């Protein structure tokens, strides 16, 4: 899991441009899946027969895209103006290294020497920020980049203490779980949906679910962990290192309450540490899947990710295997969910 996750996080797939991630996953899963198709949106949909048929259509979903930037224009001096693709707090962008394919750049930040007293107290808006790719002129920049290109955070997955830091853990961690389950062979017949544009508003999941028509979907995700200084009690939402999260609810979905309780029981019986989400925030593909066509029951399993949607998103290494085991156990109990 750890190695696969690191590999997946190295690939760039900003929301709306998931091709490289999709190519990698397609090549990786093709030997194991019974069928692999890509829909018009770019979702990668794989079917795999399991040890048995559960009598229901089961869908696992993880999104391939990550938050990032999109180049909107090139200034006369050869700097790039950009917008965000997915929810990013502008604070984390200043001075951040980014890459547009092979082109390296940095989000410019004014050195303290140049700031007025007033400017020191405020943050610039995204509109006023720019990416510096070291171009000598507008013409020089245009040779390397064009408006519409996507920029991803440029960093290498790094282990520190008990944590793995990497961009795009949300949701390559979900992709890694699905891939491993495909390789090891699922307990029941099921669909594996690697979706696009989740960070743009759950846009890929709807057509994916429309095609698959699941009775039950388990969305495998990364979710906000607030176990950091200054955050107390319920506001922590969830805690890194305490096992996978089974959310009851987020801003887009109320996961089926009966399934949530059963999933917690299954985890407890199997001795898998897990936690619920103590603060309602965020949203997942379940919001779209649950309402597609005649509707579907949904359940979520997520890794607790600190600093989510930043270049330094971090997951506890110890949470990865239990997360995989939990998803596998839930599939094994598909008839009881």
């Amino acid at each position: 899991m750890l190695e696969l996750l690191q590999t997946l996080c190295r690939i760039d797939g900003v929301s709306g441009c998931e091709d490289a991630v999709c190519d990698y996953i397609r090549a990786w899963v093709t030997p194991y899946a019974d069928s692999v198709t890509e829909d018009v949106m770019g979702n990668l949909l794989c079917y795999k027969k399991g040890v048995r048929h559960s009598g229901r259509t089961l869908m696992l979903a993880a999104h391939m895209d990550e938050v990032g930037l999109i180049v909107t224009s090139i200034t006369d001096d050869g700097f790039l103006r950009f917008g965000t693709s997915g929810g990013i707090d502008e604070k984390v962008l200043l001075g951040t290294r980014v890459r547009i394919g092979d082109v390296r750049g940095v989000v410019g930040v004014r050195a303290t020497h140049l700031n007025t007293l007033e400017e020191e107290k405020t943050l610039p808006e995204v509109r006023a920020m720019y990416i510096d790719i070291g171009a000598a002129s507008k013409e020089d920049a245009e040779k390397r980049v064009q408006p519409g290109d996507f920029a991803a955070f440029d960093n290498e997955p790094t282990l520190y203490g008990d944590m793995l830091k990497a961009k795009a853990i949300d949701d390559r961690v979900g992709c890694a779980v699905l891939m491993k389950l495909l390789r090891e062979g699922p307990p029941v017949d099921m669909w594996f949906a690697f979706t696009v544009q989740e960070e743009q508003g759950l846009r890929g999941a709807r057509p994916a679910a429309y095609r698959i028509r699941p009775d039950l979907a388990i969305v495998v995700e990364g979710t906000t962990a607030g176990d950091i200084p200054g955050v107390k009690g319920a506001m922590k939402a969830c805690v890194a290192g305490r096992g996978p999260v089974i959310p009851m609810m987020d801003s887009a979905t109320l996961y089926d309450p009966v399934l949530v309780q059963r999933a917690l029981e299954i985890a407890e019986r199997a001795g898998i540490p897990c936690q619920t989400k103590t603060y309602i925030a965020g949203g997942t593909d379940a919001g779209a899947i649950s309402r597609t066509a005649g509707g579907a029951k949904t359940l979520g399993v997520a890794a607790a990710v600190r600093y989510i949607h930043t270049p330094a998103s971090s997951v506890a290494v110890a949470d990865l295997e239990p997360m995989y085991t939990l998803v596998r156990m839930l599939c094994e109990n598909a008839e009881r969910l």
Partner: protein
Amino acid sequence: MNYIETIRELAEITAPSGFEKAVTDRLAELCKPYASEITLDPLGTLLVHKKGSGKKTLLTAACDTSGFIATYIDDDGFVRVGELGKCIPSACVGLPVRFQNGTRGVIGCDGGVEVKDLRARHLYIDTMGETVRVGDACAADLPTYASGDSIVSPAMNRACCAVLLDVLQRYTGDGDVTFAFTAQGMLGGRGASPAAYAADAARAIAVELTTAGDTPESESRSKVKLGEGPVLPVSVGGTAANLGLIAELEACGVTRRAVDERGQSALLGLQGVRAGVRACVAGIAARYSGVMTIARVSDMQQTAELLLAAL
């Protein structure tokens, strides 16, 4: 049908958004003698089908109420919550609530927070030591009662359900009608779209509460008054209703159009299903969306009459 008794019975069932089973179980019993088929969809919406050879119509009414879900229980037993439906936090302080397991509580709030800064995260439920599990849901524990022609209730969505029940019981035409008591209405009308998919009807009418503007210094632009019969909003929360369908209903005797700025409507969810659904709202004027809502029985009865004429 006795509206007051029906609404009181339904309103006293604790069944907030996502936890509708307690109320759909009772609704299914009440519908059974009149239905061809009754099913529950994956989100928990109760679909009651009355078969007919004529035109297909979907009628919807959200059967949930707003409420809270327990997300965290601190060392002293105070319960932190998530909102099931947008609450007005300041209106919730001091509110008695009841969990589905019967546990009762009172909502308190963190000290040191100014009223204008109050958010749901500052609220907690004091259950006086009684047990609640994380994931349990609760709703306002207040009585529903009549005062003259008015009904006062913390669960006024159930009045919309009563209108659907009334129509179901009295409809004798040959139309093919699905009555959907939808789940998760207070979470943004989430139950509407799957219900419309299942019903596969070309037209849908959502029975909903429409914000009344007949109160002091009301900011509602439409000046809807209680007791003047059903309202036909041309737009709800920025979603336009189908004007052709509104005209059909007007031909049945209603002339009160309005614009409703409120958000939680089924309208948006109904329209985009399959190849598109002609949808509008038949609104019952209601005052106050904080805790207790006031609406008129005569408006509910006239809404039922309108639907019976339109089917």
